[in-house]
């Protein structure tokens, strides 16, 4: 069976780093695939939800009689009807052992806590009939005062103000602190701030992280088929494995009797990292009726009742030396959780705790978090989850510090950032960053951007009082990806681990099936994982099939979120592939009549050192399949599995530079240039990475400029359709210029760091910094997000600068030499400003 046949040259060329077109795209783009809502089963019923129009109300009566007699309605169930079955939806991350979490029945029984909460469900033979009948369900509500304002809610108690859940006695879920002095990773933040007040700079700011809504392309959908030995659930979810576990935990059905399938899923962005009430209700109705059911939410339902993201008030105190080196940061965070503790819930802002210090070396750091319940839609992960909020705060502050000391914002950052030669570096928050090169990324970004030329243009426009002012925004970000080392999650009171799992099955024909525990919903795992396996095993890319998203196929997995798939999931694939090679080796040695020690494996072939004898791994797979000629006592298989639990997070970073033009007459923002240089470690498929970066940038820019979930004074969502919730399109954005530096992760064989959230985390502060930079000479030092033209115009106007006529003496970039002199002269008090 030896062969001396020459391999085609391309077979040994590395697959890592190749811009392969995505395997998935043909079926996705042509629609030749099956989404959850396309699934049709014999006898299947359709569900429609009856939802509360009130933010907070007591349910005094529900009359379902008319709905029950509507055409082709099979059943109508209220929360009271299922109250014996339904417990509470789970939260995986109570951040403290004494966290207060209100019970969250999937269907409200006697009280609703946000507008959009499900109070009844109709099952009918068609979706239209279910919808019509849902309108006939008559619910009597007694409206209760609603806790809607985050700051007011934080102040409320049993005697004063409004409680979202009166029985809790407070709106505060918990208090969570990270203190560098207490944990020994740095000094006392109060001492450092006091020192800076006496002889240095203290900057105090309060920033708003507005509420956002994940607006994936495919609304959530769930089909439950209770016929058969296992109950099968199809769901448009990011987390089939967690859904299975949670349904088992909350229904009493054994986990082994539940099969969850996430077929092709149209985007998630964290919005499908949830155990939804609708999933639970569909499961419950299907079991009660013994018939398959489907529920697909409308876009309005998706916007109103699917979990929201962000929503924080950030009170920040930054201390620095007179030269602008940061010495301390204190963060007091209020985080709106909405009505309930969601799956990750209060853990989302905790994920920011290690990121407010970002790439910088502070002497002292303190992070104080108070998650707060309100009578609004629940809040959970949204692309970046905790880290964009943190990055926004510190990168906005660094810009303010630069303005304060009159230095270029990049220079100020360099005073405090971790130098390349200092890696690995343990931060003041206690994280150990393994690798990075902030100098290299910044130098490359500056060059691509034409930084000096744009600064010169900015100066010219200031001096000529141009009605169109130019601003330059910087964001030198890092993030923690690859969620997550299980031991750390355990220490943080998270309910699960952070490992992932892979199986590699070597088929008789030499084809390879790769089973991954991650669950792609648009990312392109099938392509990237194929490249990785093709590279590792030396088999053709086309011979690799990637299987995922079905708990019957992929029985172990932690799914996809937190930029973890490539860092954790694909690393498990690599390790499984290495095991396949190790298992194949004795077979190859036996077949080649050589000693195992004399074998080498390259390009998919075992060769006997010093001879021309070799054998392909695909041939070994066939030999294992036939079992005709294997070593004595050998198990006839070279299949392998691996679970990988990361030792540390990964830390992608990058330098993003944004130039905007502000029309000072209208407040209109026009993006002029956006350059980003990201270091995401090893790149498997540059085209996929490019797609992730572009998409991420758009989502981050959207937070800066366009998107905001707004509720009115009664708690009704005002931005309840895409007319008012402004998701930008290609028509609203420019072409981004992207580049890379590469500092591979040192914790994995692949060296990847994750790229799913980078653009979103980095871009928001870059844009807002650019806006503030453009109009700082009018006396503006902040514009609340989203930076609408109206807000920008008002910021200019309120400072008396409107209409493109800045105060003449201040008409220069904020780090201009004259400006510096003026500011330094006036900064003798060294106090907060």
């Amino acid at each position, binding site marked *: 069976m030896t062969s001396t046949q020459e391999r085609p040259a391309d077979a040994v060329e590395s697959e890592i780093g190749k811009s392969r077109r995505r395997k998935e795209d043909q079926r996705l783009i042509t629609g030749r695939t099956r989404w959850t809502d396309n699934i049709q089963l014999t006898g299947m019923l359709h569900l429609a939800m009856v939802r509360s129009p009130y933010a907070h109300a007591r349910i005094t009566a529900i009359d379902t009689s008319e709905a029950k007699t509507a055409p082709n309605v099979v059943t109508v169930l209220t929360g009271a009807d299922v109250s014996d079955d339904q417990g509470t939806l789970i939260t995986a991350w109570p951040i403290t052992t004494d966290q207060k979490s209100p019970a969250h029945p999937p269907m409200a029984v006697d009280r609703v806590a946000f507008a959009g909460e499900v109070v009844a469900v109709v099952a009918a033979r068609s979706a239209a009939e279910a919808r*019509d009948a849902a309108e006939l369900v008559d619910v009597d509500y007694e409206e209760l005062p609603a806790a809607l304002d985050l700051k007011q809610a934080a102040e409320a108690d049993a005697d004063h103000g409004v409680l979202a859940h009166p029985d809790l006695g407070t709106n505060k879920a918990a208090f969570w602190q990270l203190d560098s002095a207490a944990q020994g990773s740095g000094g006392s933040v109060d001492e450092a701030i006091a020192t800076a007040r006496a002889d240095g700079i203290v900057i105090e700011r309060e920033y708003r992280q507005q509420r956002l809504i994940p607006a994936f392309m495919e609304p959530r959908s769930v089909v439950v088929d209770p016929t058969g030995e296992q109950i099968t659930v199809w769901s448009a979810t990011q987390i089939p494995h967690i859904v299975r576990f949670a349904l088992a935990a909350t229904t009493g059905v054994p986990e082994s009797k539940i099969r969850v399938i996430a077929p092709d899923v149209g985007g998630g962005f964290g919005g499908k990292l949830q155990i939804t009430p609708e999933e639970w209700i569909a499961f419950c109705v299907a079991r009660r009726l013994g018939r398959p059911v489907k529920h697909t939410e409308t876009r309005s339902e998706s916007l109103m009742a699917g979990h929201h993201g962000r929503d924080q008030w950030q009170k920040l105190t930054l201390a620095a030396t007179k030269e602008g080196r940061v010495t301390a940061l204190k963060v007091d965070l209020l985080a709106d959780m909405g009505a309930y503790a969601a799956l990750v819930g209060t853990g989302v802002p905790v994920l920011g705790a290690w990121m407010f210090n970002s790439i910088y070396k502070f002497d002292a750091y303190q992070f104080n978090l108070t998650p707060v319940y309100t009578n609004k839609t629940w809040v959970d992960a949204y692309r970046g989850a905790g880290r964009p909020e943190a990055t926004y705060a510190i990168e906005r502050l660094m810009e303010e510090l630069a303005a304060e000391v009159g230095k270029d914002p990049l220079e100020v950052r360099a005073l405090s950032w971790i130098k390349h030669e200092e890696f690995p570096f343990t931060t003041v928050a206690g994280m150990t960053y393994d690798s990075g090169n902030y100098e290299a990324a910044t130098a490359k970004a500056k060059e691509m951007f034409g930084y000096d030329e744009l600064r010169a243009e900015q100066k010219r426009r200031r001096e000529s009082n141009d009605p169109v002012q130019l601003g330059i925004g910087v964001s030198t970000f890092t993030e923690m990806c690859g969620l997550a080392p299980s031991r750390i999650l355990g220490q943080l009171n998270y309910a699960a681990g952070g490992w992932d799992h892979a199986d590699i099955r070597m088929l008789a024909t030499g084809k390879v099936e790769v089973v991954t525990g991650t669950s792609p919903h648009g990312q392109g795992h099938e392509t990237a994982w194929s490249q990785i396996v093709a590279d590792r095993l030396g088999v053709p890319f086309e011979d690799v099939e990637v299987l995922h998203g079905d708990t019957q196929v992929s029985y172990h997995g932690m799914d996809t979120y937190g930029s973890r798939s490539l860092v954790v999931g694909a690393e498990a694939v690599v390790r499984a592939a290495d095991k396949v090679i190790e298992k194949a080796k004795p077979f190859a040695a036996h077949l080649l009549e050589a000693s195992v020690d004399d074998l080498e494996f390259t390009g998919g072939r075992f060769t006997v050192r010093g001879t021309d004898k070799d054998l392909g791994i695909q041939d070994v797979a066939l030999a294992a399949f036939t079992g005709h000629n294997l070593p004595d006592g050998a198990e006839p298989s070279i299949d392998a599995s691996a679970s990988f639990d990361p030792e540390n997070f990964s830390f992608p970073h990058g330098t993003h530079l944004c130039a905007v033009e502000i029309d000072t007459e*209208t407040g209109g923002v026009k993006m002029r240039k956006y350059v980003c240089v990201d270091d995401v470690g090893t790149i498997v498929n540059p085209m996929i990475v490019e797609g992730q970066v572009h998409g991420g940038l758009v989502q981050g820019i959207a937070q800066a400029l*366009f998107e905001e979930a707004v509720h009115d004074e009664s708690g009704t969502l005002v931005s309840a*359709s895409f007319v*008012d919730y402004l998701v930008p399109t290609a028509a609203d954005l420019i072409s981004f210029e992207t580049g890379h530096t590469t500092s591979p992760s040192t914790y994995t064989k692949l060296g990847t760091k994750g790229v799913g959230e980078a653009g979103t985390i980095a871009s928001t502060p870059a844009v807002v910094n650019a806006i503030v930079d453009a109009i700082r000479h009018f006396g503006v030092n902040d514009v609340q997000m989203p930076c609408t033209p109206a807000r920008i*115009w008002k910021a200019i106007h309120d400072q008396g600068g409107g209409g493109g006529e800045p105060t003449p003496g201040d008409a220069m970039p904020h780090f201009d030499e004259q400006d510096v002199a003026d500011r330094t002269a006036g900064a003798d008090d060294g106090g907060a400003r």
Partner: protein
Amino acid sequence: MIPAKFDYVSPTTVEEALQALAAAGDEGKVIAGGQSLLPVLRMRLNAPEMIIDIGKIDSMRGVRDDGDAIVIGALTTHAEVQTDPLVREHALLITKAVSEVADPQIRHRGTFGGALAHADPAGDLGAPALALDAEFVVAGPGGTRTIAATDFFVDLFTTAMEDTELLTEVRIPKWSGWGAHYEKFVRVAHQWPIVAVAAAVKVDGGQIAEARVGLTNMGSTPLRATSVERALVGQPATDEAVRAAAASAAEGTNPPSDLNGDADYRRHLATVLTRRAVLAAAGG
């Protein structure tokens, strides 16, 4: 989302459509391109029992020259109006404004008459129609009547048409040789205008001989900035002169406040956009 149940007819003549409208009474709703009505039905903001689809009435489609006016059939799509040479020659402001309606998909489905009859004060066509003295030809049980633009727009989503009437065509006097510009201010491209200004200007020897200025989304109907029009007459087409004239653009308006800005901001925008629209119209 699924609309509530409704009956549907698709007449092929104006007469049949009028009969269907009369038969439906309060419960009838006309659909043309459906770009406004379908979302309303799907979100169940309205549930008419009878939908009268006029899309098959071919006589209501197309643009023709009618001597001192051009006539645009109500069913002509925005995309057809946008590329029509007669419209461009005699009512350039319409060409400019219709090019700014929503996005290409919507412009290929949505109709000129449908958008005007919908009477959304944030719609892009009302202000130019008003500025250009358009006339609305309306067929009803008693025959045909013509409504002047100043009378046509009554309130938010309300026109002078009766429930039993159908807008068949829009007559626009010829404004040959006038410069025109539609200045629309939005945050994202697919949005309704926060404010927009439609300007048509006749320039003679570097001076503005006559001007027409319409305002979009500055009240419950499209509005004309008549004080600006008067102030512009005889002025040079310079930034300074036009700025002064445009300062009164928001006079007498009652703009809405919403997530995109409050009324004061809109009043300010109206003056800036009026200046820009007039200068652009005067320049070409």
